[in-house]
């Protein structure tokens, strides 16, 4: 553990850990849209900017994305500096230009005093802020069914060739991890549809309700080493069976 100074307050942090996570752990509020504990940081949204300096840097300082900066001994961090606020404001300004109808972005922008972007708004506004959380979680789970494609203004999240992704197992992790709810899916008791691909759900043998998809159950039971027979019943039916068993034991 090393000691760092954040906004004049001394805190203890583990050397080499990423700054943003250490700051969050210590209760500092820093805006970030592309950070999630389940994936490695990526520096996608550029909102977690902070100013860093050290005593022996002779007054020199720099602005870094705290999600990717490793903690060093004697670091002096400023999270509410004027330059930092301005840098974040500019990032949000650009984000509002891209996503002028996204509640999460507008909410953050309002905190920094932006009601309307000073840039030209996108002609086709999108909720996707290209934070890459969906593609990163998909990579981490071992599927890589979707990825960021294209460059510049045409960059987007998509399955290969915008067709049904062959590797997708329909686990919905991308949809739930999305900070702006851009990824849409349809779901009912028996089926689930995401990225244009339809999945059959694994149905409970007893009541017929489905919680996860067949592909998901198959993949994760293999990957995590779980006997697939435990997936046969839903949680409700399992509870029913076990409460009956306990009842018998009680007699």
């Amino acid at each position, binding site marked *: 553990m090393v000691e760092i100074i954040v906004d004049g307050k001394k805190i203890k942090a583990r050397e080499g850990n990423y700054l943003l996570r250490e700051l969050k752990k210590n209760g500092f509020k820093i805006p970030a849209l592309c950070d999630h504990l389940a994936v490695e940081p990526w520096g996608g949204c550029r909102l977690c900017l902070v100013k860093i300096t050290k005593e022996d840097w002779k007054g020199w300082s720099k602005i870094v994305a705290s999600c990717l900066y490793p903690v060093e001994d004697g670091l002096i961090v400023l999270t509410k500096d004027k330059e930092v606020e301005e840098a974040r404001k500019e990032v949000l300004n650009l984000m509002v230009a891209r996503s002028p109808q996204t509640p999460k972005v507008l909410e953050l922008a309002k905190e920094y005093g932006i009601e309307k972007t000073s840039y030209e708004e996108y002609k086709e506004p999108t909720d996707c802020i290209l934070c890459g959380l969906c593609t990163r979680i998909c990579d981490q789970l071992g599927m890589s069914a979707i990825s960021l494609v294209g460059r510049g203004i045409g960059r987007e999240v998509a399955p290969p060739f915008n067709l049904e992704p062959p590797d997708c197992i329909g686990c919905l992790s991308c949809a739930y991890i999305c900070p702006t709810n851009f990824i849409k899916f349809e779901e009912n008791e028996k089926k689930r549809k995401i990225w244009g691909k339809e999945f059959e759900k694994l149905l409970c043998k007893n009541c017929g309700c489905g919680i996860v998809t067949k592909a998901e159950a198959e993949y994760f039971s293999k990957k995590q080493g779980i006997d697939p027979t435990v997936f046969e019943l839903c*949680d409700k039916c399992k509870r029913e069976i076990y409460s009956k068993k306990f009842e018998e034991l009680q007699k």
Partner: protein
Amino acid sequence: MEKIYRVETYKCISCGKCELACGFAHSKDGKAGTSRIKIKKIGIEKGMPVVCFQCVEALCVKSCPVGALVRNEETGAVDLLEEKCIRCKMCVVSCPFGNIQWDENFEAVAKCDLCKGDPQCVPFCPTKALSYY
């Protein structure tokens, strides 16, 4: 030493107070959460409470692909780190006892965490079917 969360099923009168207490203890923004403890009625004023066993070799922990379910060394419970959870629902289907549920309201996994060492259901149980000592 760790405390023990004890359920004496023969004392349960299926009044449902523990379910209410649990729902409120896990409420957010004024909305009650799904109760982690469930009572199955088995007769007049008789019930069978079913709640997470906090298994030593827990299948939910094994099934989680991102390690969002971890053992809390202080309470001995298996805690769900909500910030890490990706909501793939694998724990919901892998629990052999069905004690992990999907909370439709919050779109989150509902799992008993022994309220971080102070189970809220215990003081509300009128017959002391639930105890923590």
